[in-house]
């Protein structure tokens, strides 16, 4: 949109400029001359700027003149200069201008900005505002070119209009925002604290509700109990005397070449049912899923994946056997060799 308008106006301006240039030879330099003073004012990048318009300077093309004008406007920041070529787009002159712009950039430092079209667009207003001192020459040039129609809504006009409007608005806001922020903070902080406290309390209570569901005391038979002297358990027998009360079988048999007494937990290693000791078949047989174990507790049939577990057994100083169900001994882990898992008779 803006570019189109610019082009139209620019074209007119240029047409007039050329007409003048042809009429007054002195005018043609005048188009350049404004550039020269502008350059001299900022002092630093100026010298290359004139160079840019100069080569194509034979005021042939629009883009050239525009470039010159803009180069002046953006005298300080080298960025805007490169933009103009992109906008103008006249093939020949563009390349020239670009070359000139880069030449400037080389001195002006901010070279990379050349490629970005938006960046220069932003840079322009700043440049225009900042380098207001430089602007008059451009305006004068335009006036000189246009004659009676001073602004002609020349490219400069529409460009500048939004610029002054924007800055004051944020300034006004900037004064109010801090007050609101303070109020917000005053209101929000206690609210945030309250909600955090509520969330923490709720979370804590839920956690302890889960904990509440786990009883702190259990009514269970004692894990240590005496089962009488070893002589009560003859060789080759399985005693089911303590099975229903404490969940153990007392077995007296030979294991690994030693005659020993040990206590087997009456819990099937499949899914925890209580197998039965079948005296006739000399095996433990689980009624739930048919797992079978030899008298020594090794599994041999059914789904049970491992042998029965032993629990602790020791001979007390009083000559009585004592079972300790708080410890387990698993054959597959080699724990049956632990001397607290059996009593040698």
């Amino acid at each position: 949109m803006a570019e189109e308008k610019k082009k139209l106006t620019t074209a007119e301006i240029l047409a007039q400029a050329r007409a003048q240039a042809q009429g007054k030879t002195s005018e043609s330099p005048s188009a350049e001359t404004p550039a020269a003073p502008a350059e001299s004012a900022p002092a630093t990048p100026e010298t290359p700027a004139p160079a840019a318009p100069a080569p194509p300077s034979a005021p042939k093309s629009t883009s050239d003149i525009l470039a010159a004008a803009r180069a002046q406007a953006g005298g300080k920041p080298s960025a805007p200069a490169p933009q103009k070529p992109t906008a103008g787009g006249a093939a020949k002159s563009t390349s020239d201008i670009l070359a000139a712009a880069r030449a400037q950039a080389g001195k002006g430092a901010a070279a990379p900005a050349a490629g970005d079209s938006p960046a220069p667009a932003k840079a322009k207003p700043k440049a225009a505002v900042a380098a207001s001192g430089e602007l008059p020459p451009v305006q004068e040039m335009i006036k000189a070119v246009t004659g009676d129609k001073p602004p002609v809504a020349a490219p400069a006009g529409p460009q500048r209009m939004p610029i002054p409007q924007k800055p004051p608005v944020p300034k006004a806001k900037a004064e109010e925002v801090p007050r609101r922020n303070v109020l917000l903070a005053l209101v929000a902080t206690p609210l945030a604290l309250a909600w955090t406290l509520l969330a923490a309390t709720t979370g804590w209570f839920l956690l302890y509700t889960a904990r509440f569901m786990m009883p702190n005391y259990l009514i269970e038979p004692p894990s240590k109990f005496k089962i009488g002297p070893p002589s009560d358990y003859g060789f080759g027998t399985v005693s089911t005397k303590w099975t229903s009360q404490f969940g153990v079988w007392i077995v007296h048999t030979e294991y690994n070449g030693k005659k020993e007494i040990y206590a087997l937990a009456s819990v099937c290693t499949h899914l925890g049912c209580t197998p039965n000791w079948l005296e006739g078949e000399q095996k433990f047989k689980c009624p739930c899923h048919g797992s079978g174990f030899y008298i020594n507790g090794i599994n041999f049939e059914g789904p049970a994946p491992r042998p029965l577990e032993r629990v602790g057994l020791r001979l007390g100083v009083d000559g009585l056997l004592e079972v300790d169900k708080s410890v387990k001994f698993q054959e597959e882990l080699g724990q049956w060799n632990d001397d607290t898992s059996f009593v040698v008779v």
Partner: protein
Amino acid sequence: MSIGEYIRESQIWKSIFRHPAPYDRRNRIVVMLTNFFLHLHPVSIKQQGIALSYTWCMGGITFFLFLVETITGELLMFYYRPTLEWAFQDILALRDVQTLGIMREIHRWGAHAMVITVWLHMYRVFLTGSYKPPREFNWVVGVLLLVLTLLLSFTGYLLPWDQLAIWAITVGSNMARATPFLGSEGPGAQLFNIGEYDFITPASDARFLLLGARTVGEATLNRFYILHCVAIPLVVATLIAIHFWRVRKDGGISQPL
């Protein structure tokens, strides 16, 4: 004025049923909208929507069985005490002594039937593609109801406190030992061994939470009784209401294309 008219003209009747009988289309709609129980359902459905060959009425049968279980279960609660001393005795008394003690058998067979019809309902919904959008959320609610139905079966299983019950729950709950992270024998449980403290043990894992003890005992019986009679039915009733309501909200009962 007939007796029927007299009743329908009385203030008591009108205070309950604010609108006339559904004798025309408008009143049929109004009755549906102003009745608490009926408003869960759509005002009208297409004839094909209730075709038995399409729906099998499996959801309806399941709901009917849920009502049967609720009523018979509540009646059984008057005679059943969830203690080691009395649980099994009360079951025997219902079977051998109590008039209409067959109520317990109705409850038991109804429970078996409900599990079957829930599965068949799910099967029907799957076959007819009724789980697809916009009904995908109601499918999820249905899956929750399926799980809760199975949990009702599981918790009710223990209450007779016979050998079958005790060992079935022993076996079933032993699987909870293998719960990931929260089971004492499950994968990842060792992650909760922090320093000297072992947070997931046979006395603090998921199975312990379920049983209230390290073995199936009186604490378990009490827990399962409460879960079976109060906790799960409340959740199920709520979800059923949502399930029905969503049928209406998600475009009515699905029907042949």
